[in-house]
């Protein structure tokens, strides 16, 4: 399972109908289970490992692991967006537990917690 949403950390983005992780997935692979107010990766076999879901999660609830067929599941890679949104820092932990960090310039765009907010800003009727 390449991308994994930690149910202990995911808060479903409160009352969001379509939380950011779900909206930013280019393959439409993440679903929110409204009965427990949590998101999960419904189609792991279709995941591209592109990581927009992880980058936009306000709770940093999504973990990235290698597909087991490629090697150990122990190594992790986690991006953190800086408050000014001009930098991203990646925490990289290898299979032996050694940690390295990489800080890179970027320009992160703000994103609303729910699609309706975005749509109403655009004046779009997108009733679901």
């Amino acid at each position, binding site marked *: 399972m390449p991308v994994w949403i930690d149910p202990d950390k995911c808060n479903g983005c409160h009352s969001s109908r379509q939380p950011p992780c779900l909206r930013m997935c280019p393959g439409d692979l993440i679903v929110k289970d409204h009965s427990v107010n949590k998101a999960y990766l419904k189609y792991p076999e*279709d995941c591209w490992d592109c990581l927009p879901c992880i980058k936009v999660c306000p709770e940093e609830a999504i973990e990235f692991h290698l597909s087991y067929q490629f090697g150990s599941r122990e190594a992790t890679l986690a991006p953190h967006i800086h408050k000014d949104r001009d930098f991203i820092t990646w925490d990289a932990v290898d299979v032996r537990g050694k940690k390295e960090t990489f800080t890179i310039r970027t320009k992160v765009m703000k994103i609303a917690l729910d699609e309706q907010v975005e749509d109403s800003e655009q004046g779009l009727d997108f009733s679901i």
Partner: protein
Amino acid sequence: MIERQTIETDILIIGGGTAGCMAAVEVKEKFPQYKVTILEKAHIDRSGCLAGGMNAINAYLNKGETPESFVRYVRSDSCGLIREDLVKSMSELFEYCVKKVEKWGLPILSDENGDYVPRGRWNIKINGESLKPILAKAARSAGAKVYNWITVTNLLTEGERVTGAVGFSLRNGKLYVVNAKAVLIATGGAAGLYRPNNAGDASHKTWYSPYNTGAGYAMGIRAGAEMTSYEMRYVALRTKDAIAPTGTIALGAGAPQVNAKGERFMVSRYADIGGDGAPTPYRAHGPIQEIKAGRGPVYLDTRGISAEKVTDLKKAYLDMYPSQVLYWLANDIDPGAEPVEVQTTEPYIVGGHCQSGYWVDVDRRTTLKGLYAAGDVAGGAPFKFVSGCWAEGVLAARAMGSDIERMEEKVLVSEERIAAEERRAFGPFENHAKMKHGIKSSELESRLQKIMEQYAGGASTYYEMNEEMLAIARKKLADLPQEVSGLVAEDLHQLMKAHEVIDRIDVAQVLVEHMAYRKETRWPTYHTRTDYPERDDVNWLKFVNSVRDPQSGKIVLMTRPYEQLVPGDRYKP
């Protein structure tokens, strides 16, 4: 009863990706009076090829280069045959586009003189992790109306004119009917025609976006648009397993290819065509021949690069393809200490790396009135990358704007046509309710990929093919269109997946005809004909084009002449 939403617009853009977003901004800036509507299958903030980010702009005229020198390079890199008019016209707009995107916020590395930092002859370095959201914001702020989660299934046509498009919403299940004066198709290329490199939970661990499934090609094929050069498939040299781009290593760290014995085979065997700098098809063909001859695996020799270079390499991948870094972490690999193993990918159809796609004029008009094409879906102009896709978006936008200024009335299609498309679009949904043993999209996908893999030059036959194999592929593929009537989809996500396979079947049939028609081997590995192993400039220095007759469904092949505009040896950069 399917609910319907009808949208009236001046310009419709199908696919809000690299080319689509740039085109939207250009229309709104040059022709603010026109309404622009984007229909996007996912959410434009993170859709298509750019979803994971980019670390370079791979087509740019660095200091000292000109549109002519670019044409010469791309021509030799594509083995002597390109649409020089198209390649030249896009290169003239690289700077215009790159400067714009920098203004919107993209960090581009500059030196002390303010010049962009090159990464190789035609590339510049960027920190493009957020490139897609930056483009999306620009398109929205410019005033384009964006409809996310609309899978477009077909163009609407009246006679020879394209009048709009139809799709369905993944969110509310409505049928969207858009009437427009001009339509730009910008849906990218096609992955998943062949068996992917990996299986199981990594089957979508492809290089090309697995969600770009040739929809734009398929819509054009069904509408009778002229297509070109599908036989120039793209087989990419990528890192083993992770399938990450290797340019980052080859250009970024200057690492050459070596075989299992440590031999620099590109130098020893391909010196006459440039060695390590041989045309791109040969840089995939070379390693495959090593593996075929038992001299594999093949590596990019990164041994001995400095710790600083290794860090740069990792950072570059984090900007574009983070899973490569995780792969090294999980396997305890230090690319400075051991070479990086590489492999070749499933064949993709990508007009931005090769030149398969719509046959367009220099303003990116297709052969159908009212329909324009830009980006990976447009043909004739390889070596586009992000900047060429932007440039084509700009060219198409300008042409659409000025063409519709002269147009009096919008043409509307009949209700029967829309109703027919509604039935086609939602067919798998209805089947689900009434069929006991319906076909799942994943099953039809496997069947398609098996045929292509085994008879149409897949990786398992070293990308080789001959007349007889292609005849079998043709015959087996001919059964698939009927199978579509048995496809089932239980929800809207599955309906999208069903259409992804339906589209790929249409593309695969045209692809096989193109590969059978060109009786030479111009682009080894992309199109290796074992029965015609040599390049043949006397008979085949021309484009192979096709049109599928919308009435009979017959695919008609034809050739179009090559025109040399930039003088010089076509095989020298």
